[in-house]
């Protein structure tokens, strides 16, 4: 007996020594540029600290918000006993309502059922599913990402082993859209390339094409037979109007593109942690839609089997109950309005402080983010001295600005830009 124990102990000992060496060659990964901002913020003990890192909505007291429509939805589904691997009825309802939201409930694709839609793990999951799908069925294809784009887009397509390129988007001097260069890149890309587009409230720049520009882009895509993939993460946050924010997609739809779309309910329904989203790919007919859907589900099955059910139930409830949905639309508008107000306030404060720089872009840009034009040095300065946190590219999440801190923020920005050059 004690001999057995001795053997076990000695084996544990020698195994654990050997085991210590298994992952020795694994180096720490570089920190994620966005979430590391929040980590640094949390570690800061200053009472005046401001987090302008992650695009998560805050109210005017700087607190996270649970939308009333969600509380209503929770109450409605409480006591609902079914927790199993996603009831397909709930999942289908979610997909049905999601695609109506983005394509318009009267659109032909919806009426004819010409879409393959699956639930996804929020926007990231939807993009990753599509990237894997693209790799599997067009292994030689590339993806064109706007320059700049959400940093995780690069990670997603890289991990799916799809070759990536960028196309011109942001004009640093104008702090607006570099439309000529964008169209040139679209024309010069090989026919039939895959492009990732932000349909509204571009992340990180907040710079969106105008309606006319979207029409031109759509036309050129037709000529070049490019595949447009939209990442819709902020529907409702750009203008406050859900349909208006989907205008770019609907223009492409009119022109007959068979596009793909990733949707996230993290921001516009405040469901961040629940990971609820939808991926849809438009098809020629229902038969193809069924086939594509089955392939997407197959990819998902080997990744995470099935998506989390709670958030799905909430979204499905909100979107299918007319009263709760009306409340939601109102609340989204409220959130978008608050952000718009903060943009105006910040801009005015900067002007009042006598800043000589052009801050027009603060109100020109759209959505949660403002591409401030601050350099990495200035960003570090803001963090060190003023305890204001944002990503190194100068992207500020306006959702983190309140009437309480806007003056402090304006003052700090003015201080760090007084002497140096804006990028």
């Amino acid at each position, binding site marked *: 007996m004690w001999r057995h124990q001795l053997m076990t102990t000695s084996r544990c000992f020698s195994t654990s020594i050997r085991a210590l060496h298994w992952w020795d060659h694994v180096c720490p990964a570089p920190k994620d540029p966005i979430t590391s901002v929040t980590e640094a913020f949390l570690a800061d003990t200053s009472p005046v600290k401001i987090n302008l890192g992650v695009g998560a909505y805050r109210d005017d007291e700087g607190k996270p918000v649970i939308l009333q429509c969600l509380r209503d939805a929770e109450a409605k589904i409480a006591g609902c006993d079914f927790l199993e691997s996603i009831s397909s009825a709930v999942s289908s309802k979610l997909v049905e309502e999601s695609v109506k939201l983005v394509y318009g409930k009267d659109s032909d694709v919806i009426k004819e059922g010409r879409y393959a839609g699956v639930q996804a793990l929020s926007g990231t999951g939807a993009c990753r599913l599509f990237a894997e799908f693209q790799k599997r069925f067009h292994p030689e294809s590339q993806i064109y990402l706007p320059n700049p784009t959400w940093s995780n887009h690069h990670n997603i397509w890289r991990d799916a082993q799809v070759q990536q390129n960028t196309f011109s988007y942001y004009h640093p001097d104008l702090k607006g859209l570099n439309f000529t260069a964008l169209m040139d890149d679209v024309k010069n890309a090989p026919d039939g390339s895959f492009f990732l587009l932000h349909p509204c409230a571009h992340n990180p720049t907040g710079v969106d094409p105008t309606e006319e520009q979207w029409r031109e882009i759509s036309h050129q895509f037709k000529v070049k037979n490019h595949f447009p993939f939209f990442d819709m993460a902020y529907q409702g946050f750009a203008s406050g109007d859900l349909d208006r924010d989907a205008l770019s997609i609907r223009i492409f739809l009119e022109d007959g593109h068979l596009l793909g779309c990733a949707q996230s309910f993290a921001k516009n329904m405040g469901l961040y942690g629940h990971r609820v989203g939808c991926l849809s790919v438009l098809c020629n007919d229902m038969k193809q839609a069924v086939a594509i859907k089955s392939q997407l589900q*197959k990819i998902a099955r080997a990744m995470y089997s099935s998506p989390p059910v709670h958030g799905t139930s909430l979204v499905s409830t909100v979107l299918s109950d007319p009263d709760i949905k009306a409340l939601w639309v109102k609340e989204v508008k409220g959130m978008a309005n608050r952000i718009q107000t903060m943009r105006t306030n910040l801009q005015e404060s900067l002007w009042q402080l006598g800043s000589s720089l052009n801050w027009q872009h603060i109100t020109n840009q759209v959505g949660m983010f403002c591409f401030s034009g601050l350099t990495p040095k200035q960003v570090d300065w803001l963090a060190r001295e003023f305890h204001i946190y944002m990503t190194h590219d100068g992207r500020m999440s306006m959702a983190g600005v309140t009437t309480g801190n806007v003056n402090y923020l304006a003052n700090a920005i003015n201080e760090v830009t007084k002497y140096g050059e804006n990028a």
Partner: protein
Amino acid sequence: METGIIIVAACLLLSLAMGIMFQSPPLLAALLISFALGSVYSIELPFLRWKKHAFLAASCILIARAMVVQLAFFVHIQKFVLGKPIVICRSLVFATAFMCFFSAVIALFKDIPDVDGDRDFGIQSFSLSLGQEKGKVRLGSGNLTAWFHKEKSNPFINTKSSGRISMAVAVNVSRFEGITMAPPDPILGVSEAFKADNDEKKLNLGVGAYRTEELQPYVLNVVKKAENLMLERGEYKEYLPIEGLAAFNKVTAELLLGADNTVIKQQRLRLIERYFPGAKVLISSPTWGNHKNIFNDARVPWSEYRYYDPKTVGLDFEGMIADLKAAPEGSFILLHGCAHNPTGIDPTPEQWEKIADVIQEKNHIPFFDVAYQGFASGSLDAMQHQVKSQLKRLARPMYSNPPVHGARIVANVVGDPTLFDEWKAEMDMMAGRIKGVRQKLFDSLSAKDKSGKDWSFILKQIGMFSFTGLNKAQSENMTNKWHVYMTKDGRISLAGLNLAKCEYLADAIVDSYHNAKGLNSV
């Protein structure tokens, strides 16, 4: 099926009758040869069913369409209908040559749409060997479908020059044209088939999801309590950090659950692929159906080690040890911590010791998949900072951060002593129900089966599943005749069985085992 046979037989007899009546030897010969070719092409007999082999299938098609049809019909018409001498003319040569080419194309392209179906039925078509893309892209079949595709009325009103219109018609075709249906998942597909069945006796023994005695899904009381607590507290729905809820990670590590879901498995495997390129994983034969998909999609090469012995319906321990010893040093070994899925067969503690010895000796790294802790017992896994940061790095482009609701429930339940005790009690109850069902099933089988077969393996197996030893044909009989839904490998989920249905199930098993066609495994 019968209708099909009747139609084929009628056509055959009619055509042969005509061939005889018209008194034309070449015509009759053509019909007989076509009949022969069709038979060797399709009939399921040894040395036949030539469609299974790409070259033989192509030969059949070529001979029938290009040669027999051209030459025999030419002779028939020329000599026996028109009464002219037989002369080899240019049109005959052209027709034959063209049809040779055409048949070759058909032979290559005909199987492109259903590569998956062919794979499932063991048909080795050219398309399967070459791959759909290679077979299609180069030769432009996509264009063919574009030209012949019926266009919807998509107004191309934005055109700046009308010359664009024809391009638009071709361009409107989906980039994902020609994608086939994925085969139904072997496990989830069972539940779908079950739902479609209207028979009142139906029984779902497919997915491993716990059911009550009333065969209803069961939400644990502790889970409801935890949810109510969370509702009262009105906890926010913010993003979790990439590694997840700290409280959740802590309690699960303490529970010795380690990484127990597919998502984290996938990350670990990508870690293997990234940091040990070329390393192989060994998985048990059989294992959970989705393991292979996970490894394939993570591009980690895998092979199997023997595990299940159909003769004893138990563990093939010698085979397992031999395979572990034969594997290259430093391989990853996927082990089921407890309640092996799908067999329910676990090694004894002494056998675990020996397994550990071999793993140590060969410098292998064991990887535990623990999905059923509580239905048996758990295992330990250690994490270092580097590994954790790399796992986060893999998670971020997959799903950014994990879902918060379930994590909170677990953290609340496991972290609160009262709720934890309640949870243990409920686990006991669930595991107890399954044990009770195993006993009743065993008793029913022993009573109903007069052949003297030893059904005690049902009692020896552990966890939610039982490997019945039924083969594919017998499992199909269970479904087709008895409306009992299970996976084709003979696995039944006892969680989906109640005491009331044990006798019915026993009848089904005894009937399928003794009477269903197919090789008996024991």
